[in-house]
């Protein structure tokens, strides 16, 4: 019958049942991008560099035993660990790295942007050289991303994987990767379903420390049921409980709360053509100071932090908690009066079907709405499933938008997207050149290689954003992981959530 984790130490010849509301479309490391996919891929495909535990501020060696950036920040040289082996026993070589990275770029999947402007070469079997067009100080922080896990190129090629230009049409390996694995990680794929469960089994040829659990069953379960299951010991690890659900769980389970790199934010459209009202700076001020931050934080729950700026607290260049905005109703009301707002309803769009870290957008939106109502702003909620909401968002047509941004990789450079003309900036109707001042700082920050200076630049950037930008950062949600007492050594990592190989 079911083998459940026991407290007897040593190697547990056991199964670990993990429950997660799946955000999963593929197990192909060349395409994987979603949260659940990252968890799965990370267990099977080791990257060159990794993060130790939950600390994402410093990349550390994994398949690459050392790495070194050139002074201009454009070239990153890595030396591979010659003991590293794939699950079929063959050694991990630089060719495999070149193949893996080129494939990610050329299949034009969700993660291919990670390697935009980066070329990868292998001077010898143990050396990989990554060359960027511009100084790329963020590159080492990118490499631990699950999508950049290294694939056994011989096996992959045999299954139709292609790394050359045009791979988006010619690569035929995804189906194979959804049923098998060819990485060097502690687990291999036994079965895979994007909606039911994913089963991983320990890689018996693993070159590192053997994992404790021989089998990981990752099941797709809604958060409310996860709670019941973990309390009833029907599962040993639940990953999606909301802060409310995680209250009063009793002594049978351990609760781990960690702040994530996911930032929930509100924006007001800067484009007067889209919204004459919200593009008014006074109106933005009214919103910024009118939001009920305390009320919102009560929803975000224990473990979450109010976001002083867009860059999450775990990352370089994050603002200190003291920089957080406080509600100032008088100021908000005054600003609103000055803005000439005449009481019209403003639709606030948000993705209704997304629940992240147990935070339901619908509930959050209602809280935001209530806060703004107190100021005198009439907000009409306009929820839609992501599929429908995203096009409007992408096209910069939302007057008010409530969204989240999860760090693609743990480096503040990911947040340059919020600048005018940037990916997210445009969504808020913020055209390139609208704020030359900010753009200049952003450009500097992007290529600055000195950590100290980088941090200062990013902090400066965020303070200015908080004054003139259309974004109102709300909070970083808390990852709440609930596990049976039998499970130990759990550490939440913002990039891959949980490292199954490290669990005891």
């Amino acid at each position, binding site marked *: 019958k*079911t083998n459940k984790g026991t407290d007897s130490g040593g190697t547990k010849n056991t199964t670990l049942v993990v429950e997660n509301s799946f955000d999963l479309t593929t197990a192909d490391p060349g395409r994987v991008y979603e949260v659940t996919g990252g968890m799965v891929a990370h267990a099977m495909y080791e990257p060159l560099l990794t993060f130790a535990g939950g600390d994402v501020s410093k990349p550390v060696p994994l398949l690459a035993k050392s790495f070194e950036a050139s002074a201009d920040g454009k070239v990153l040289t890595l030396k591979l660990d010659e003991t590293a082996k794939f699950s079929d026993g063959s050694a991990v070589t630089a060719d495999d790295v070149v193949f893996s990275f080129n494939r990610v770029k050329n299949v034009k999947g969700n*993660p*291919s942007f990670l390697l935009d402007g980066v070329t990868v070469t292998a001077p010898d079997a143990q050396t990989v050289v990554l060359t960027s067009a511009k100084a790329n100080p963020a590159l080492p922080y990118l490499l631990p991303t699950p999508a950049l896990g290294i694939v056994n190129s011989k096996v992959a090629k045999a299954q139709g994987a292609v790394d050359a230009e045009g791979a988006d049409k010619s690569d035929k390996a995804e189906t194979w990767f*959804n049923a098998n694995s060819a990485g060097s990680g502690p687990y291999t794929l036994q079965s895979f379903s994007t909606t039911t469960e994913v089963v991983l089994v320990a890689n018996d040829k693993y070159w590192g420390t053997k994992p404790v659990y021989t089998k990981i069953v990752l099941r797709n379960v809604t958060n409310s*049921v996860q709670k*019941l299951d973990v309390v009833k010991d029907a599962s040993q690890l639940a990953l999606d409980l909301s802060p409310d659900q995680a209250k009063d769980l009793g002594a049978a389970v351990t609760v781990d709360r960690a702040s994530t790199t996911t930032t929930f934010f509100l924006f007001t459209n800067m484009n007067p053509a889209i919204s004459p009202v919200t593009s008014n700076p006074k109106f933005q001020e009214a919103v910024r100071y009118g939001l009920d931050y305390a009320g919102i934080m009560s929803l975000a729950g224990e473990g979450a932090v109010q976001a002083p700026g867009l860059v999450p607290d775990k990352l370089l260049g994050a603002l200190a908690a003291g920089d957080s905005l406080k509600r100032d109703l008088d100021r908000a009301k005054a600003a609103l009066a000055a803005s000439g707002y005449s009481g019209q309803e403003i639709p606030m769009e948000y993705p209704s079907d997304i629940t992240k870290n147990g935070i339901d957008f619908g509930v959050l939106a209602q809280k935001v709405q209530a806060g703004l109502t107190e100021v005198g702003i009439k907000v009409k909620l306009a929820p839609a499933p992501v*599929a429908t909401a*995203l096009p409007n968002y*992408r096209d910069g047509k939302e007057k008010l938008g409530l969204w989240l*941004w999860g760090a693609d990789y743990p480096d503040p450079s990911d947040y340059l997207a919020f600048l005018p003309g940037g990916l997210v900036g445009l969504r808020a109707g913020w055209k390139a050149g609208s704020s030359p001042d900010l753009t200049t700082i952003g450009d500097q920050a992007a290529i600055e290689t000195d950590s100290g200076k980088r941090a200062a630049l990013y902090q400066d950037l965020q303070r200015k954003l908080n004054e003139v930008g259309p974004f109102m950062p709300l909070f970083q949600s808390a990852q709440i992981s609930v596990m049976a007492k039998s499970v130990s050594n759990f550490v939440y990592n913002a990039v891959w959530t949980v490292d199954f190989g490290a669990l005891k």
Partner: protein
Amino acid sequence: MRSRPYLRFVLVRLGALVLLAVGITLVSFILTNLVPGDPAAANLGQRALSDPAIVAAFRHQHGLDQPLPVQYWKYLTGLVQGDFGTSQRSNRPVGDELAEYVPATLELASTAVVLSVVVGVGLGMLAAMRRNSWLDQLLRVVSLAGVSMPTFWLALAAFFLLFYKWGILPGGGRLDPGLDPPPQVTGLYTVDALLAGQWDIFGNAVFHLIMPALVLAAYTVGLLTRFTRASMLEVLGNDYIRTAQAKGLPGRTIVFRHVLRPALVPILTVAGLAFGSLLSGTVLVEQIFSWNGIGQYAYQSALNLDLPAIMGVSLVVAVIYVTVNFVVDLLYGVVDPRVRLQ
């Protein structure tokens, strides 16, 4: 002389089925394409979405860059070869995904149907035999409560009480976690487990089926109870029942041989239709019981505007529905000689 009209009837119905299938694909195609919403947006990451090359690649890969009639024609020609297209969400063939989810739902829905027929017809007979008694009144209230019950609410209540509070039944899923499903033959875990001789798996699968099937059956039990009662009463009022009584046959014989059979005809109809409503009900029930069937699949696909998947699900559900009702029609022939011999 006996088989020809019947055969003709079967063939005509099969032809109608094919036409219906084409109609379903057309409707779902038009519908999913008419409404605003961009599948690329739903199925690409935020970063990728802003990269025109990736979006173009996505659109090209799923044929979304072609004119609609061409897309539809390609879909149809693929369908003829058993190809349901490729899911935009998972990039897997929709056919494969359906093959994965349909059996789960079939297992659940058939269990619920069998349950409803047994319980519903039984209760209905009881009510008819004891008509106007307090039992009849009680059954009437109970059956109306069954059809009035919000399925999702009942599911939550059952889950909360039977699993969480009392621990009588297992929670979600088709098997206890950690148990491997039986080797796939039919995709129905119970059947496959039996085929493989895995009794523990069979027991576990049945154990997991009980709660969702009961919840799902609540509506149809109510429906069938009401209909069986009405149908039985209708038959009981017939002259030929009085004839049977006048022949001195025992009550049991009369009920089972003389009353039940004609009463079955409308019951069959309702049972067939009930199967359709069950398929819809699964959307809500599967959600709560983590039952990975087409209900969940449909929900996910609809949210993600995964066109091939939506079309595939609609098609499968429609075909199941039509097939069930087709079988019901054939059963009429078995039950009623007047149908068979005409």
